[in-house]
């Protein structure tokens, strides 16, 4: 394989699933390129990525705030009502002396999801306005570091599992925040899994290349 200079490496794509090597080809707006070996999605082309990303991450941010404001679930045991919120989940662990698990829970279900969605919002915002090239690079690097440690979707499934465990012992009322959290998780999965981080890098390249010309 021969290339002119290192920048041409941007046209080469390694499949995220099976590590096979592909050449980037121009595709239609709104379509996607698949790996010829394992059918994994290599990249998508969406001319409105910055706009859509900004809208989605702002919505996700609002839902996350809502998910933290009200009780997720309420249970009624022997006439005593108890409720659950996201912060309460790890604060109770701190109270009972489980600092390691408490810290894990605090970062995995609260700090990292919040930080991730904030970073995405700022990133899409500056990409949309075509501002601050160095900052967008730092944000993208930070996002890649944080992303594997954001576990809001696992927390949501855990809530469902614990609800089933409580059936028969308590009356369960599902709160507003539960639905807000569910909405956040769907948006979060869309933003982090459906939009590949490499697509945002491609978008960034396109945006600032246009600027130069």
């Amino acid at each position, binding site marked *: *394989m021969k290339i002119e200079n290192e920048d041409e490496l941007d046209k080469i794509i*390694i499949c995220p699933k099976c590590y096979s090597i592909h050449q980037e080809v121009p595709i239609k707006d709104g379509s996607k390129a698949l790996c010829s070996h394992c059918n994994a999605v290599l990249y998508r082309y969406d001319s409105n990525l910055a706009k859509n990303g900004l809208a989605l991450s702002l919505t996700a941010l609002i839902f996350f705030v809502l998910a933290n404001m009200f009780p997720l679930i309420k249970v009624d045991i022997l006439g005593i009502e108890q409720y659950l919120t996201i912060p309460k989940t790890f604060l109770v662990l701190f109270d009972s002396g489980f600092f390691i698990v408490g810290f894990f829970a605090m970062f995995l279900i609260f700090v990292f999801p919040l930080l991730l969605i904030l970073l995405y919002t700022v990133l899409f915002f500056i990409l949309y306005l075509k501002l601050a090239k160095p900052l967008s690079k730092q944000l993208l690097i930070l996002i890649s*570091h944080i992303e594997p440690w954001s576990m809001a979707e696992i927390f949501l499934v855990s809530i469902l599992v614990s609800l089933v465990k409580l059936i028969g012992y308590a009356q369960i009322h599902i709160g507003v925040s539960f639905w807000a959290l569910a909405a956040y998780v769907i948006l979060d999965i869309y933003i982090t899994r459906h939009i590949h981080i490499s697509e945002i890098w491609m978008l960034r390249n396109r945006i600032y290349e246009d600027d130069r010309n």
Partner: protein
Amino acid sequence: MIEIDEKDLIRCPICEAVNINKGKTNICRRCGTHIYKHHKFRTEKSWAYLITAIIAYIPANLYPMLITSQFGHREGSTILGGVILLWEHQSYPIALVIFFASIMIPILKFLILIYLLISVKYPLGKDKKINKHKLYYFTEIIGPWSMIDVFVVAILAALIHMNNIQIIAGTAATAFALSVFFTLLAAHAFDEQLI
């Protein structure tokens, strides 16, 4: 004009940019991250995390995960005990979820990582490279789901703490959380390029 071999192409683990493997130190041309700094001991970091995770997994199974305290009477249940109890109470789906998340996934992940780490140094088996890459991808996807049990314990402890009836997290919760944490680190430290 640069002449490159397809085998020398590596992907930056952070920004996914394709780079040319230059040997000693590779700095990603797009994001500036060091790609696999420790060239002489490439698998050892991953081994270290993995062994820590396996050690932490032992107390996670022996100590109680959840302590139920009813009117001063305390009763602990281990991970496996909890699964069996759920099975006996005929909540099969939940028993299966907990079984998969807390027992199957961690053990499967240990085995896959051990297999991958050994197979990069000593070519055992005639598995195709593509299958190993898929296996690694699979461990990355399923890994975090073992946290379910820890979160369930945290949720139950937060929901049920009254004067008479209380659910308290047990020692195993800490051990299990650490085990999952180190398995995730081991998977991240594994250099996919070696396969």
